[in-house]
């Protein structure tokens, strides 16, 4: 285990940000801390980095107890949502910062900086200032800067949160590739479940200061432990008082078992799949998702009455 956090509790005044939180991060993995804003994920990340101290609990990094250890000595690289670029230094000087602090010889510093700038594809911008770079470029610089001192851990706090949607997608793929090339244990915070599902080996869902579930993306998607996780990860719809995945909702003209009647309200054809919005007898809306062929077989039209049932067990919790 590269990181172990045990029973972390953190309070800010009267507000409890983290309540007895424990997580494990395997070495070399790419783990996501996922959850809604204000849930405590960034706080946990900062505690691991040593930028905050918990009220109770322990953090172990690579088997060492981090109690009383300053951020300078933890060997962690940190990337901030708003880049935290050193505005008065060039890109090159930014990336070289950690190495210069450690008084490495000039030639070594230059070599390493060149390596990293090539890695993040910022070599032509070495002499520019951060204000002259785009958001995506600044974040790549921040990553290069963090990696320059060969940290044992890479922590990213909503790294793509401040970027445009298309830049975000680009950098996501880029980060995945980077991690494959340099498998440093990476822990990143995000509120975007798509991002977590796409990038992470392991996801820890944190909400209101507590861990809801930890597991692989398919664990969380197929076997959510409660309604919150199910709702947060992947699409949901409500049927028979429980949450079901829309693609697990079966539509039949003539029912072959217990089923509810529903009126087809709207049909959206997205090429490969068809999304159907239905309304139950009591007025409740239900969403279903079918492949195109199935929809064609049923010859669905708006206003039709069909029977709906869940083909897979729904979330274990009983919804209110």
């Amino acid at each position: 285990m590269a990181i172990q956090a045990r029973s972390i509790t953190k309070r800010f005044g009267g507000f409890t940000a983290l309540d007895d939180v424990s997580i494990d991060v395997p070495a070399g993995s790419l783990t996501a801390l996922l959850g809604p804003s204000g849930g405590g994920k960034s706080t946990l990340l900062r505690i691991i980095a040593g930028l905050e101290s918990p009220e109770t609990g322990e953090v172990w990094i690579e088997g060492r107890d981090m109690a009383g250890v300053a951020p300078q000595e933890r060997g962690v690289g940190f990337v901030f949502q708003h880049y935290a670029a050193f505005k008065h230094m060039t890109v090159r000087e930014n990336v070289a910062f950690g190495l210069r602090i450690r008084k490495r010889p000039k030639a070594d510093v230059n070599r390493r900086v060149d390596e990293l700038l090539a890695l993040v594809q910022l070599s032509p911008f070495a002499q520019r200032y951060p204000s002259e770079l785009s958001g995506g470029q600044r974040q790549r610089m921040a990553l290069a800067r963090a990696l320059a001192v060969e940290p044992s851990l890479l922590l990213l706090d909503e790294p793509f949160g401040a970027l445009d949607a298309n830049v975000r997608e680009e950098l996501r793929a880029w980060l995945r590739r980077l991690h494959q090339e340099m498998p440093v244990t990476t822990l990143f915070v995000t509120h975007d479940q798509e991002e977590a599902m796409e990038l992470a080996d392991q996801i820890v869902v944190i909400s209101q200061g507590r861990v809801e579930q930890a597991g692989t993306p398919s664990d969380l998607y197929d076997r959510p432990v409660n309604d919150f996780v199910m709702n947060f990860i992947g699409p949901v719809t409500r049927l028979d008082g429980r949450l079901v995945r829309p693609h697990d909702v079966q539509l039949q003209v003539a029912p072959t078992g217990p089923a509810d009647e529903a009126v087809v309200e709207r049909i959206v054809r997205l090429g490969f799949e068809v999304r159907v919005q239905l309304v139950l007898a009591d007025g409740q809306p239900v969403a279903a998702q079918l492949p195109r062929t199935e929809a064609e077989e049923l010859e669905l039209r708006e206003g039709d009455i069909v029977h709906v049932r869940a083909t897979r067990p729904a979330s274990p919790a009983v919804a209110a």
Partner: protein
Amino acid sequence: MKSRLALRTVALGYLTVLLVLPVGMVFYRAFEHGLGKFFDALTTPQAQHAIGLTLLVVAITVPVNTVFGIVTALALERRSFHGRAVLERVIDMPFVISPIVVGLALVLVYGEQGWAANALVASGIRVIFSVPGIVLATMFVSLPFVVREVAPVLREIGSEQEEAAQTLGASGWQTFWRVTLPAIRPAVAYGVVLTTARALGEFGAVAVVSGHLQGQTETMTLYVQDRFEGFDVTSAYAISVLLAVFAMSALLGMTYLDRRRARRS
């Protein structure tokens, strides 16, 4: 537009009558009797002493207030504690207190019957009626400037860059020197100019604290009053011109630094 012209005329007229003409008059009076008399006035032993003393006081006041100003700004914006508003009020106090009252308060602490009198007598240091007193008075009145310029900048840039430096291995001092200081440099420069101008021009507090001892504890501003009351009007105006020139240099400094800051943002 006619009303625009009218407004402009009134404003400029007001400024001319209030500002331009009087200052112009001082220059006129100083050079009225020729350049020679002007320089004579500046080179008498007493004048030379006043100029030297003023520069000495400024040379001590400005660096000390700058260092403590930065420290206080850092305390305000990088430390969490209860009573921020109280601290800010205390920092603003020198702006609210009359210079005469400042002088009196200092005499009440460091004077012959003051609170610190015993300790001072024991160590043989004279504060009131001596240079240390003048330095203290000048430091008091110019205390807030650097803090008030630096604190908002520290608040605005936030602590993320400093945190980043920490995770990269920089110690507290390295972080301050390489990351924080370059970011606050323009604010510090502006604060230094304001502090210097204030220190040069202080009169009331120093008048009380110095005892006005000619040739010993007279700063330039006190010397002006001394010459004026001695009916040596030309000398008074000559020193005033020198002070006005310092003031205008400070003004130029302020304008220049202001423009640079505006361009940066």
